[in-house]
Every structure is written in C-alpha cells, then in structure tokens.
C-alpha cells in the first residue's frame, strides 16, 4: 500500500503524479513505438485505426466528459476536416498547410455551432447537434464542385516535406505522433484554468457561474477545441480510408464515437484511449470469431461425438455473419456498460488498481455515484 502525501497545490496539477507513473508511461511509449516492428503489417494498419479513433474520442471526451455538453453530431466535424484536407490537397497545397487549414476550418465550424449551443442545455443541445450533422451530411452530398457528391473523392497518400508516408508502418507513426501531441495538449489544457473551468461547468453551471467562470467563453472554447481535434482526426481518417463519400459521416458514426467515450469511461483521457481500442478492434475480433467459432466447435463435436455442439457453432457463425449484427453487439455492450459499470473501462481499471493498492480494506462504496431523484436537482 502506497501513500501519497501532497504538500503543495502544485502537486495536484503535475503532468505525471510521481516518478513511478512517469516510468510506466515511458515504458508504454517504448512499447507503442516498438510495436509495428514486431507485429504483422495488417495489424499495424488496424492499430492506426485505434489512434484515429482515440483522437476522435479525445475530442468528444473534452466536450462530453469534461464540459458536459452532449453532441450527437460529431461525425459532421470529422467529415468537414476530412473533406477540407482532401480538397486542399487536391488544390496542390503542401500537406502541412492543408492539415492546418482543415483544423482551422473545423475549429471555426465548432465555434459557430457552439454559439447557439450556449443557450441550450441537455437534450435540446443533443438534438441541435444532430440536426447540424444531418444538414452537413446533405451538404457533402450536394456540394459537388468541392466534394464530388456520391461519386466520391480520392485522397492521396500523405507526403510531408518530401517524405512519403505511403505504407502502413509509416502512417502508424504519423497517427501516433498526432495522437501524442493531442493528448499532451489536452492534458495541459485540462490542468490549466481552462480545463478546471470546463469541469466546473460540467459539475454545476450555476456554481461555476457564481465562482466567476464565464460560461459563454468557456463553452465556446470547448466546442471549438473539440471540433478542431475532430478536424485533425478527420484529416488522418481521410488518408486512412483513401476514398471519401458522404455516406460515411452518418449519425451512426457519431453514435459510435459516443459509445467509445462511454465504454472507455466518461471524464478521463485514459477512457478515450481505452474506448478507442475497444471500438477499433471489436469489428476485427467479431470477424475472427465468426470464422473461428464454427470451426473450433465443429472440431470439438467431431472429437467428442456430440453433434449438437457442431450445429450450434454453425448457427453462431451464421448469426454473426448476418448484416447489421455488429450494430446490435455494439448496442448490447453499450446497454450492459451503462447498467453495470457507468464509469466504463477506466472505472473498472481504477477499481482493480484500488483493490490491490488497499488490499485488505477495499471499500465498495468508494466509487458510489450520487443519484438525483428530485426534479429541482436536475435542472441543468
């Protein structure tokens, strides 16, 4: 059991809690850098999806997890970033400039969307962002001079200062670089006054306002920053899928991002990464299960002579290969997480850690969340 004595306020906002912490993060960094040289090229490609999703999760985490503003339309920002980046690349601008412009445009879009959002709370804001996403998706399919409509828009491989990032391994490092920069930026913002103001707004708007937090300014910053991160993710996303079409950036994608944030754990940067790992790797895992379960169960049935197990395996395989099953599995996991573990994967991780660090004296009530039943307490 380890005790943590804090003797100054500075210690509350350090980048790493102590040297042990820094050591483990360093080890993780080494692992992530070394990974693409160990595993298969295909899995390197899948892992760069994790980084892109983590950027998206980071963006939504700032808005939903830290500022308490729910957006059901973040795929629109992803789309704006992706299309802007691809369009500027097509116009012959250098990669870095196109990227910077894409981020600037999404940031501006986020700011503009955030302005009316200042007057709305809760469900109204969710629906307004949903409407925004529907409108933007329509714009993508109609504004053919820029987006080429449903015909689609090819995106070249990134070339930065003459260095081409054309294979999976180099693209992996590109994504990793942007993710680390974004994580570091966000972490610093969160321990600065801005982040504390966001958290204060999330916990109670009224209390934050009476402490002198300017709601309008900080909500706008949250929206703009979140959208900018989404634009960054969008530019990488455009390279990753290599061909943009308007029907990628649907509401279902926005909902997938929210799923990511919730399953990962609301209100923690770790949660964004955990959620990204989950969301990016679930489809390949389902695909692997779809192929392996019937086979292994058939083998088991042949070995033991129990025929029903073989047909059960075939039934599971047939079920998993039906279209739309993935969405249902996502939904089921979402429901189970919200019912059983509202803090998400990061919450589970914290609980396990606390159990071991306070071994004989773990108290279940440590993470108990307060519920509010009175209507007056829920006015937010």
């Amino acid at each position, binding site marked *: 059991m380890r005790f943590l004595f804090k003797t100054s306020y500075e210690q509350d906002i350090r980048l790493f809690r102590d040297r042990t912490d820094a050591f483990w993060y360093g080890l993780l960094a080494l692992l992530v850098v070394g990974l693409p040289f160990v595993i298969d090229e295909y899995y390197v490609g899948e892992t760069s999806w994790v980084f892109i999703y983590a950027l998206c999760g980071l963006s939504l985490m700032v808005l*939903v997890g830290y500022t308490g503003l*729910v957006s059901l339309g973040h795929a629109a920002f992803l789309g704006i970033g992706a299309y802007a980046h691809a369009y500027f690349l097509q116009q012959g601008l250098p990669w870095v400039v196109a990227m910077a412009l894409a981020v600037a445009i999404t940031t501006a879009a986020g700011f503009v969307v955030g302005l*009316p959002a200042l*007057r*709305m709370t*809760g*469900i*109204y804001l*969710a*629906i*307004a962002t*949903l*409407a*925004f996403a*529907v*409108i933007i998706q*329509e714009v993508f*399919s*109609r504004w053919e001079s820029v987006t080429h409509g449903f015909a689609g828009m090819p995106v070249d491989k990134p070339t930065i200062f003459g260095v081409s990032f054309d294979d999976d391994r180099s693209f992996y490092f590109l994504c990793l670089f942007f993710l680390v920069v974004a994580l570091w930026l966000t972490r610093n913002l969160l321990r600065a006054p801005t982040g504390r103001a966001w958290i204060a707004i999330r916990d109670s708007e*009224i209390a934050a306002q*009476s402490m002198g937090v300017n709601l309008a300014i900080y909500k706008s910053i949250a929206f703009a920053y979140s959208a900018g991160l989404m634009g960054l993710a969008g530019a990488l996303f455009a390279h990753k899928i290599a061909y943009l079409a308007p029907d990628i950036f649907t*509401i279902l994608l926005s*909902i997938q991002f*929210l*799923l990511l944030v*919730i399953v990962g754990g609301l209100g923690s940067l770790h949660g964004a990464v955990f959620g990204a790992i989950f969301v990016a790797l679930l489809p390949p895992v389902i695909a692997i299960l779809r192929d392996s379960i019937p086979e292994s169960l058939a083998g088991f049935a042949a070995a033991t002579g129990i025929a029903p197990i073989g047909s059960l395996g075939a039934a599971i395989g047939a*079920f998993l290969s*039906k*279209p*739309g*099953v993935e*969405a*249902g*599995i*996502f*939904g*089921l*996991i*979402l*429901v189970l997480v*919200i*019912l059983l573990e*509202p803090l998400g994967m990061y919450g589970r991780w914290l609980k396990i850690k606390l159990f071991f660090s306070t071994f004989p004296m773990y108290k279940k009530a440590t993470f108990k*969340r307060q*519920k*509010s*039943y*009175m*209507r*007056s307490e*829920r*006015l937010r």
Partner: protein
Amino acid sequence: MNGLAVGCIYGLVALGFVLIYKATELVNFAQGDLLMLGAFVAYMAVAWWKLDYWVAFLISGLSVAVFGALLDAVVLRRVIGQPQFAVVMLTIGLGAIFRTFASVTWGSEIYTLPTPFGGVTTIGGVTLSHQYLSIVAGTFLLCGVLYLFFTHTRIGIAMQATSQNQLAAYYMGIPVKLIFSLIWAISAGVAAAAGILLSPVTLIDTNMGLAVALKAFAAAVLGGFGSIPGALVGGIIIGLIELYAGATLSEGLKNTAPYIVMLVVLAIRPQGLFGTLARKKV
C-alpha cells in the same frame, strides 16, 4: 394533405417522446424502433397468420405496449437518477439491439402491409386518398382517447400528478414505479399505432424507424419537449415544411429544411414553441 398526414405520424412519435419525458425525465431514442417493431408485428399478423387488419392493429399495439412496460421494468428503471446522457445512450443501444433483432428475424427485405383503405374521396374539388385520411383520423382518434384517459380516469390523473412531482406523488400513495411502466406501455403502444398507420406510406423495413424518429425529434423540440399539444403541432409543422420544401425548393432541402427551421426556432426560443423554461433560483 399528404404533409399533414406524415406530420401527424411525426406528431404521434413525438407524443411518445413527450409522454415519457414528462413523467420520467428520460428521453427515449428507441421510439422509432418501437414503431418499426409495431409495423412488423402487424405485418406478421396480417400476412402470416391471415388475421383481420383491425385485429392485427390491436395485437400489435398491445404486444408492443406490453413490451414497452417490460422494458421499463427490466432495464430503464435502473437508470432513473443517473445523468440524462446515460439514458440517451442506453436507449440508443436498445434501439440498435431492436434493429438487429428485426433484421435477423424478418430479414432485410421490404414488406407492404395490406390495408382496407383504398380509393379516394373528393371534397370540394380536392382529392384525398383514404390512406392519408386514415392517418389523420387515426391520429385525432388516438389523441382524443388519450386526452379523455388523462383527464377522466384515476390512473390518468395519477400519471399527471407523477409528471408534476415524482416524490410528492409517491408520498400521496401513488405507485410511481407502476405508473412509469404504464407510461412506457402507452408510449410504446402509440408508437406501434404510428408504425401501422405509416406502413402503407413508407413500406416496412428495419430502418423505417430511424428516419421517422429523427424528424419526430425535430417535431418534439420544435413544440417544446414536455408539451403534448406542442408535440402534435410541431409534428404537423415539420410534415408540412418537409412537403413544401420538397415541392417548391430543391430536392436536397426536403431533408434538411425541417432541421433548419428547428435550429432557427431553437436559436430564437431555446425552450421551443410551447415549452416552459425551467429555472432555478440560487
């Protein structure tokens, strides 16, 4: 008239949102999928079991209503008191499960529900198809029944009390949990009815609920979440806007015009047309 009819459907679905929101302060994003389930059950009753249309209507409405009550009793009761956002995500997840269930059970084909409403009537030079008339008539009938239920029965009045203040209602001896389940049942039943009424217009497939639910959201927000007449008026406004934008403006505006109007209304009047702004004094 077509816009009015489709608007009535949006209004009915929005009514379901509002009923649940008023009483339990949950927002049910699975409402559109309940609508889809209702349409499928009715189709099954008519096409597979060869039942009469009206019997199928009753079976579908009742079974989806029971399903809604079960949903509340088993799942949603546990999240009352948690942040609103958790509930939104929970119902989105439930909706995804229902859609998968429907596509596994009934496949991804498109079905048509045979209805007894064929033909047209001409009133004062305007030709009205009976299908659209049936939607409008059905909506007004349902609303009338619900109005009478809420104002003239003990349970209805208890529901009104619960939606005013849960705790006070509980202290007055109203079984709040049961009331919540009943409200879910009514809301699911209304959604199923909307699905059956809508099915001749849009045909039945597993994704029919989502599009309708999105427009119904716009309707509910336009009218002010938590206002029952607002939901109906909002639905009709959205339906008419959609029709006229499609007819007079470009095709792309048909889908977006309702949302643009909703955003403009929200920017001017954040609580919607009929809503009341909740305030807290510090």
